Every structure is written in structure tokens, then in C-alpha cells.
């Protein structure tokens, strides 16, 4: 089985600060990690490898530093790592990103493509499904459990109020939730191998076939007009009183704030 896992390097915090002037994320001083949903996707791929034998390729689009995330994936047990990097890719929104990743995947063999549900620095949950559309593949998103019966995958797709069990043949794309599993640690030998025996393949624009106008900032239909940090809300206070008392408290509070 050939598996391609798409991963993203993200800042290790859900409390990223924004530069008030440019509206972009301040990444300096924040350690980078593999996006948690993606890491669980990688773990799912490695479990398939352990049980059935598989060749696992990790793919990421990003700046040169994203190499660290790929090394980590190799040290966990991935077989091949590809870094898609080019100035032409800079400023991509989800559409441009998925076009680029899909173009790269077209150069690879696969039975299963795994992407994390969404990245903690963007939360769009769009890239995985868009790749499936570009590649005309069946897709199952929000996967929390994966089983393989030798020919098809049996997937548990979760919703807020329940789940579906979906059986899907190869090839297909799934997006995974971090709740799916507990990703393994890198192993000592895995780390040595990641640096001494395995290579990070670097692919640029010239290595993929893609419509140029779909790429980067230019190719991104999303335009960020303004971004801002949401003001922090205070915890609030709960009064357990009867309705008359409650009404009085509300009116008093509104008066106190000069709202009425």
C-alpha cells in the first residue's frame, strides 16, 4: 500500500499573536510543531505500515524551515519526505495550497491520501477536501477511526451528534482528527536515520505541473482585508435567583455601564 500524508508545520500554540500592523501571525519565538490533526494522520499511516506493510510519503508545502517537520515525520517512521517550496507558492490561501499539493501528489503513487482535518493556525478544514476534488477522489472527512480489511477502508466519520461508518475503496482521501490516536514518539534510531540515511526531497515549481495562475498570493481568491486580535472576554458571573431578582440585576448592571 502506498500512502501520502500531507502535513503542515504550525506554531506550537493556539494563542498566536497577530502583528497589529500587518495582520499576520507573529511566528518568532514560537516553537514549531507538526499540526496535531496531521500528526495523528501520520500515526494512522504508520499503524497501517506496521500491520499491513506500507510505504509512507510525507508531503508539506512551506518555507525551508518546514524541513524540521518532515525530519520529525521520518524519525517517527515515514519512508520518504518531500518539501514543496518556491517563492511562487508564498501567500497561498487554501485554494492555491490545495492546487499545489494536488499537483505534487499527481507525481506520486498512492492508495490512500491522508490530511489532517484542519491546521491550528488557520482552522479552515478546506485543504484536504479540496485536494480530493482536484484529484477526483472519493473523500471521507473527520475520521476518528480507521480499519483496513485488505481491500477497503472502514472509517468512522464523526459529527457533533453521532458518527457514520463508511466503507471506501482505494484510492481515496481522508482527513483525520487528533482524537484518532496517540502519535508515537520519534525513536532514537529513527532520528539517526532521519539525518544520516534519509533525504528530504525538495520540489520547486519546475517539479510540478500546475496552472501558474492558481498559485501563491496571486492565485488565491481569498483576500485578507483586515485581521485583528479578538478582545478577551471576562469570565462573567452567574446569579441563581428568581426572575424578578434577575431582571433587577440586569437593569442595575446596564445602568452601571451607562447603557440605559
Amino acid at each position: 500500500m502506498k500512502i501520502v500524508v500531507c502535513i503542515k508545520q504550525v506554531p506550537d500554540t493556539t494563542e498566536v499573536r497577530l502583528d497589529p500592523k500587518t495582520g499576520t501571525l507573529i511566528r518568532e519565538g514560537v516553537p514549531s510543531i507538526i499540526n496535531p490533526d496531521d500528526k495523528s494522520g501520520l500515526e494512522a499511516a504508520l499503524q497501517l505500515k506496521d500491520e499491513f506493510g506500507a510505504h509512507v510519503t510525507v508531503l508539506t508545502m512551506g518555507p525551508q524551515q518546514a524541513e524540521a517537520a518532515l525530519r520529525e515525520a521520518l524519525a517517527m517512521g515515514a519512508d520518504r519526505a518531500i518539501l514543496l517550496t518556491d517563492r511562487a507558492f508564498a501567500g497561498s490561501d487554501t485554494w492555491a495550497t490545495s492546487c499545489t499539493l494536488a499537483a505534487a501528489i499527481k507525481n506520486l503513487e498512492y492508495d490512500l491520501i491522508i490530511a489532517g482535518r484542519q491546521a491550528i493556525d488557520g482552522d479552515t478544514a478546506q485543504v484536504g477536501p479540496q485536494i480530493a476534488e482536484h484529484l477526483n477522489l472519493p473523500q471521507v472527512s473527520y475520521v476518528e477511526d480507521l480499519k483496513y480489511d485488505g481491500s477497503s477502508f472502514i472509517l468512522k466519520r464523526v459529527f457533533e451528534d453521532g458518527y457514520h461508518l463508511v466503507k471506501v475503496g482505494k484510492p481515496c482521501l481522508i482527513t483525520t482528527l487528533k482524537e484518532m490516536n496517540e502519535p508515537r514518539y520519534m525513536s532514537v534510531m529513527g532520528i539517526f536515520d532521519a539525518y544520516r540515511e534519509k533525504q528530504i526531497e525538495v520540489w520547486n515549481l519546475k517539479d510540478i505541473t500546475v496552472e501558474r495562475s492558481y498559485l501563491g498570493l496571486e492565485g488565491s481568491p481569498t483576500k485578507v482585508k483586515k485581521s485583528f486580535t479578538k478582545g478577551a472576554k471576562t469570565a462573567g458571573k452567574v446569579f441563581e435567583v428568581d426572575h424578578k431578582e434577575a431582571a433587577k440585576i440586569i437593569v442595575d448592571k446596564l445602568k452601571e455601564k451607562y447603557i440605559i
Partner: protein
Amino acid sequence: MNFKLSQEHIMLQKMYREFAENEVKPLAEEVDEKEEFPVETVKKLAKYGWLGIPIPKAYGGAGGDNIAYAMAVEELSKVCATTGVIVSAHTSLCAAPILEFGTQKQKEKYLPPLAKGEKLGAFGLTEANAGTDASAQQTVAVLDGDEYVLDGSKIFITNAGYADIYIIMAMTDKTQGTRGISAFIVEAGTPGFTIGKKEAKMGIKGSSTCELIFENCRIPKENLLGKEGKGFGIAMKTLDGGRIGIAAQALGIAQGAIDVTVSYVKERKQFGKTLSYFQNTQFQLAEMAAKTEASRLLVYKAADFKDKNIPYSNEAAIAKLFASATAMEVTTKAVQLHGGYGYTREYPVERMMRDAKITEIYEGTSEVQKMVIAANLLK
């Protein structure tokens, strides 16, 4: 000279820390309190390759260097010195001498299961009447046909009872003094080999420290490690390597104590201010940090010399002498900075201070390290 860690070492450190934080630290208090050998942790360490770090890939190891190994013991010992010494004794005192002095057959037989952590290793030199004076060995090994027959006993053996493979020193010729000592590989379960009294210790309570008893214990002739009469040299060289492990353990204990103290003094308030505000706290911490960093450089230097095949006996002795004294000093200060709470088992510094003491004693006392260092100066 390069003081910058390689990318490889940085990634190892990251993994070591994540593992130690999630898998080892939560058990440290219980392991100490119940004096329980952390069997499950050792299995996990095996799974991720911690038990064969400096063993070549050809023998099932990770093919790593001794700095990577020292860093592993350091990171484990930051949160649990018991776990640190299990790895150190296994690697430095059992796998390493087989790698260095073993025949091809011995290496092929014993190293893969040790490096993969399927089997655990231990080392037996000390006897009731042969501590620092290791030459006063009374355990004897007599060649009888194709077998050596071992009789005698060893004390204070780390990993005893849990180990599967033991490197044992015994006299093959009593008339020759240290030149009459030979080294043997003895497997657990060999008839005549039993585990005796378990020691009740001050620190590293989760590590198993027991007596080994040999009564008419017959082992195959091919389990002689190195040549007959070369055991003392093998033991001394093995301990040179072991000192890097113990110095790394001491370094880890010191760093661990600093880490918990830094968070404590930022929270604990007296006279309306956090302890971190007071200059005494700052100066104590600064001294603790400076000595710990010096220890780190000494430990890494000794490990680096070993990797580069430069004689490192003196460096290992200096590293162990300094790092163990630092561990003792830093943990004592850490307890003091914690005040009354530091003396209770509610905070880990109490355990760390008890754990630190042994690093000045085992695998050559601080006095032995001074003898090695002075002999090197005065030769």
C-alpha cells in the same frame, strides 16, 4: 571545537524531553515511594531505542554517539534518577564491555537483545570486602573441562533480579592479584546463580540493588569475556565509560532540581513578593546554574573524547567528580530554597537530594575519581 549541538542532537533532546515528561515524570514519585522497579517504563524505553543508543546498527543498536547517550541519561535523570541509572548500568556496564571486549560470537549473541532492550544488562565487581579495593576479589572461577565454575558473591548490583545478562568479575588465579581477575558473561537462570538480599536505600529507590550469589555456578568456557587475567583492566575501562553515564545522571538530577526550583520561586510569596524577587534566591540560582552548565560541558567532553577514540579516563573522572558534587550542592540548595516544603515529599527536591548522594559513591567514589585525576597529573 564546537559547542553547538547538531540538528540530530537537538531533535534527540526534544524527543527525550517529551518522553521523559510524559512517560517517566508522572511515575517518579511512586517509583521512589513504593521502591518499585519501573518495569513498564523499561519496556517503553526499549521500544523507542533508548537501550542501545551507542551500540552499532549491525548489533541492533541505534548506531549513535556517546553524547546522544549521555543526553538520554541526563534527560531521564532530570525527572527520575532511578530510570536514569537503569539505562546507564545497562548500557555502560553491560552492553559496552561486550562491544569492546567481546568475541564476534559473543557480540552477535548478546548485543542485539541488549540493544533492542529485549534483555537487560548488569555488572558485578563489588563484593562485601572488595569495594574501592576491587583487587580483593573473593569470587572464584575455576575451569573444569568446557566450563568455568563460579563461587562467591557480589553486592550492590544495579538492575539485579531484572537483568538477564551480567558481566561478572572473578578470580581465575588468586596468586596473581589483579592479574588473576577475569571477566565473564553470566546469564540469569544459570543453575547456581541466585539473587540475594535486596538493599533498602536512601535514594534511587526504584532501582534494584541486590546481592548476587554464585554457588557451583557452571557457565560455558566461551563466556569468558576477553582473556583470562584481563578482567581487572576490563572492569576499569568499563567503569571509565560508566562514569560518563553516572556523571550524566548527576547532571540531570542537578538540572531537574533547578527546573522545579525556578518554577517554585516564581510562585511562592513571602513578605508580599515572590521568592524570585530576592537577591539571595537569584544568587543561589545563578550559582546552581553555572555549576550545572560546567558539569554539562565536562560530561559532553568526556563523551566526545570516547566517540573520537581519544583516551578519556581522566575526563570521565573529572566529569563524574564535578557533576556529582554539583548534584549534591544544587539539590541541597534547591531544598533550602523550597524551605519547609522542600523537606516534605510533597515536592520532588526532597527525592532529588536523596538521589544525588549516590552519584558521589557508585562507579568509583569521588575519592577514587581524585585518585585517577591526581595519578594523571603526577605520572
